[in-house]
């Protein structure tokens, strides 16, 4: 599997793009040229210079430093939300697909109901009630993406369950727990991994969207979406202010989607057509 991935050019390209993002997210605080929160009223909205590589914002804060630090909450929310939705969705989906009957109908119909609402709308509602912050965002976005995983794992479980090796385990007298753990889960990992990479991209976008609207990470701590939101007001004074965070977000999204595509091509060749 790894060999095949390493032969995939798309995978290598997207990994090369993503690796610095993750490294910067990890060690961001230690490599910023300036304090990302420090005001400097003498240098407001300046363009790129040797002193401030990407210029400064409306309070004179260094944009590069804020970009570097701003990755962290985004990635953190994305990882947490993806993990929550992956675990929750897989549990629901596998149980629904394995048990069938009433349990299946209840779970899947509930998932359909959640899917009816646009995620950003639900997230707005919930953030309005509970308030924002990294932990809340993680939880809310994670819960919102559970139905996507539930659907994928549900259909994959249905498919695997009808295969003879599951029957053979059951006829040996294996417990349902063992069957799910040994026969079903290992054979549905590919669609789960693919879905996880796609969800990761979607959660980043959702987090950025919420931050853009001012409902994400609490200021003054920066995040990319929030920076884009702030910068949009100064688009005539310093157009580069809005371009830098947008570019970062765009490239990251592109890389993650490419990664998801390449993973799908390698792990799930049936889906390609």
């Amino acid at each position: 599997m790894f060999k095949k991935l390493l032969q995939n050019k798309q995978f290598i390209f997207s990994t090369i793009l993503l690796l610095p993002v993750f490294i910067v997210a990890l060690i961001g605080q230690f490599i910023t040229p300036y304090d990302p929160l420090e005001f400097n009223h003498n240098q407001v909205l300046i363009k790129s210079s040797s002193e401030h590589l990407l210029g400064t914002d409306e309070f004179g804060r260094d944009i590069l430093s804020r970009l570097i630090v701003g990755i962290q909450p985004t990635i953190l929310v994305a990882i947490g939300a993806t993990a929550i939705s992956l675990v929750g969705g897989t549990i629901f989906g596998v149980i629904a697909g394995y048990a069938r009957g009433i349990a299946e109908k209840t779970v899947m119909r509930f998932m359909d109901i959640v899917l009816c609402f646009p995620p950003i709308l639900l997230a707005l509602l919930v953030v309005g009630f509970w308030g924002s912050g990294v932990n809340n965002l993680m939880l809310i976005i994670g819960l919102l993406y559970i139905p996507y995983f539930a659907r994928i794992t549900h259909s994959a479980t249905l498919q695997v369950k009808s295969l003879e090796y599951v029957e053979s385990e059951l006829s040996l007298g294996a417990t349902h727990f063992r069957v799910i753990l040994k026969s079903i889960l290992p054979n549905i990992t590919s669609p789960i991994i693919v879905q996880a990479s796609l969800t990761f991209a979607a959660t980043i976008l959702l987090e950025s969207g919420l931050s853009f609207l001012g409902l994400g990470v609490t200021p003054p701590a920066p995040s990319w979406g929030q920076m884009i939101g702030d910068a949009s007001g100064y688009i005539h004074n310093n157009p580069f202010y809005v371009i830098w965070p947008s570019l970062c977000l765009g490239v990251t999204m592109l890389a993650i989607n490419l990664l998801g595509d390449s993973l799908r091509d390698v792990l799930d060749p049936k889906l390609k057509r």
Partner: protein
Amino acid sequence: MSQPLLEIKNVKKHYQVKSKNIFSTQKNNVHAVNDVSLTINEGETYGLVGESGCGKSTLARVITGLIKPDSGRVFIDGEDFLQLKGKSLRDKRRTVQMVFQKPYESLNPKMTIGEIIRAPFDIHNVYHKREREEKVKELLDLVGLSEKYMSRYPHEFSGGQRQRIGIARAIALHPKLIICDEAVSALDVSIQAQVLNLLDELQKEFKLTYLFISHDLSVVRHVSDNIGIMYLGEIVETGDADTIYSSPKHPYTEALLSAIPKAHPKQVKTQKILEGDLPSPINPPEGCKLNTRCPHVMSICKTKPNLESIKEKQKVACYLYNDQR
């Protein structure tokens, strides 16, 4: 005569299918297995023959306990298998094992061969951890595979080898009855012969009883002591294999057996061909299921014939040989 190991009495399994239109939902029953009784004695091989879709595999799954029948009883070693629960059911499961039809589907692709064959030990918690490895090696050796295959995955093997692995898994717990559900149909003829020989050797060594399900008549004749012919969920004829092959009585058996290709071109082939198609199991014909296609159909065939002995070793469900008329 040896003891009966498996006795099936009046097993029925109907599936409900719904056909919907805007105004109403119609519920129909698919009669997968309809009132089947059969007895298999210890040490014998019972061949179950029938067209695809006639309920052979459903019957096999009822016997292994994978499917609960609507009615009827299954006795294994004199114990009612369907009444068992919990631990006694798990223990009883050890006496019946199954070799599956599709070699490419019956082995978990994410488990190594060692893990697959060890699974029965893990599930029933027999032997110590280290002993299990040894037992797996013995089993691999028994089915003619090298023990160095233990750490490999199923996709690295051919169909015949996979079927051997399936057999090793089936005999791991020393079962008494092994159900071979089309166990060789997916294999090449030469590989079929190897697997059949292996099954034969294992039968002698462990005194196994086989329920051999197949649609391949020549294979069934080769391996079986007794056979049963199934048509649309019912057994229409059963008895000693040689008797049935030399003098089939039921019109369906006659037609089926006359369809076996002859080995020599000069042998005169008198094929009896049944008219029409296999009726849908959703709405099977009343009475004798063959009455839509049978060349000897009579008015009494609208009522169901019983399976009655006509010779010492032959039972037939047909009014042609039945005094009831």
